[in-house]
């Protein structure tokens, strides 16, 4: 009876495979979205409208449309616009042998999912960074300039250290969102944790177990991010 209500190892394996994809996808998304978000933030706070206007447009476009629609656009829509040869290359498996390790080009679902998630998350992270920069009193920058520091020095040693600390908690919140948002990529056929749980449910009809285990795995991942955040904030020297 007890064994009846558990999931067979095969299906637990599916869920675990899905979990690995979710972890890797979220980690890659967070890393690249942080880098892109930082660049976008610089563009957004630039004085010249040549930089700030396009970035503003990008941010409002990506922050104000549903992620699911964006994913459909990248996977189904953008693919329809690409030339046949490019599309063919993207859909074929490729493998490169580098000196230390091999690199395999993933199927198009992974590319489109990663790309869509990264742009969406970066738009939010850029605004978190901007909030961090604006959270540093402007008097400090002026004072530092008055003391004879150069502009880049002001940025590196006065504004940045404080801005990063201010934006860290909301940044971790965005990382958690990225983990949860990655579940939407199941709609474009990316075999992450939600996709796997749905498949297990389809084959076993053990609805509670399939979605229950998926939920626990998501919670575990979010708790890890939370703990990492607390640890980092704890380590920071007090001022």
């Amino acid at each position, binding site marked *: 009876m007890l064994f009846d209500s558990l999931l067979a190892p095969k299906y637990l394996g599916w869920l675990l495979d899905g979990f690995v994809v979710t972890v890797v996808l979220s980690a890659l998304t967070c890393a690249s979205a942080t880098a892109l978000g930082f660049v976008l933030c610089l563009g957004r706070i630039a004085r010249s409208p040549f930089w700030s206007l396009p970035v503003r447009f990008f941010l409002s476009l990506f922050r104000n449309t549903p992620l699911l629609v964006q994913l459909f656009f990248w996977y189904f829509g953008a693919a329809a616009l690409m030339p046949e040869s490019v599309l063919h290359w993207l859909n074929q498996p490729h493998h490169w042998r580098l000196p230390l390790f091999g690199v395999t080009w993933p*199927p198009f679902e992974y590319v489109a999912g990663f790309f869509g998630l990264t742009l969406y998350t970066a738009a939010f992270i850029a605004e978190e960074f901007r909030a961090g920069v604006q959270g540093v009193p402007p008097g400090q920058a002026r004072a530092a300039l008055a003391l004879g520091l150069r502009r880049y020095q002001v940025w590196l040693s006065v504004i940045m250290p404080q801005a990063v600390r201010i934006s860290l908690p909301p940044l971790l919140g965005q990382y958690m969102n990225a983990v949860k948002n990655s579940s939407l990529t199941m709609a474009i056929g990316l075999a992450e944790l939600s996709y796997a749980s749905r498949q297990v449910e*389809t084959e076993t009809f053990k609805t509670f177990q399939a979605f229950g285990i998926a939920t626990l795995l998501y919670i575990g991942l979010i708790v890890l991010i939370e703990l990492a955040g607390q640890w980092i904030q704890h380590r920071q020297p007090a001022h």
Partner: protein
Amino acid sequence: MNKLRIGFLLVLTLLAGLAHADRLDDIKKAGVLRIAAFDSNPPFGFIDPTTKQTVGLDVDYGKAFADKLGVKLEILSTNPANRIPLLTSNKVDLVLANFTITDERAKQVNFSIPYFASGQQFIAKKGVLKSPDQLNSLRIGVDKGTTNEIVLREKYPSATLVAYDDTPFAFTALRNGNVQAITQDGPKLIGLLANVPDKENYEIPPFSISDDLIGVGIPKGETALTEFVNETLRELEANGQAQKIYDAWFGPHTKTPLARIYKIGDKS
């Protein structure tokens, strides 16, 4: 005679009501039969572009049940994965949505005798797919939550499966080249292909990898309702109504001509 009959019926319904509430009685009392049907799977269930109503072969059977009961028909749209939850959560009385009968599903719901049979086939760009052996080396689009996915994985374990929310999405993926073939029941693929503007580029290779029987999904344990559905289906076959319904959607003058190889009662 008639009065006696009515009196007898009244006593019967009273007794049945005392024993336990029966779904068939609930339907008659409410005056509404609620069915779940597809809204984007021609010719089984789809939205008619001119009338904006859900129509199709499945819907016609639903109408026949409602007419026999003398109640109104209410149609809820469903997707493949929602069919069992809609029944178990009591949102609908019957599921008529190209519902393949399987042992696994029969643990969750009652099935009627089959009213349609089809095989699992494929659509691919012309010349890509010639024999079933090739399936093991292809990327194939499937609909989430369907038996097609399960059958394909069991029979061709090396094929790469990509699951989409429904058939139109899977077809878009095929058109974009994300997958080299998509799989569904043959009649559904014919229906899909009929509405594709560049259908000359695609083909349905002439082989199928399974034989699926389609039945009406009924809430688990509703014996009276199951009996009623089975009896009505046999009646529809006997009086030629079933053939008429079939011809309306798969007859030689339709967009999806397909010979009728299965009649109700052939298999149970």
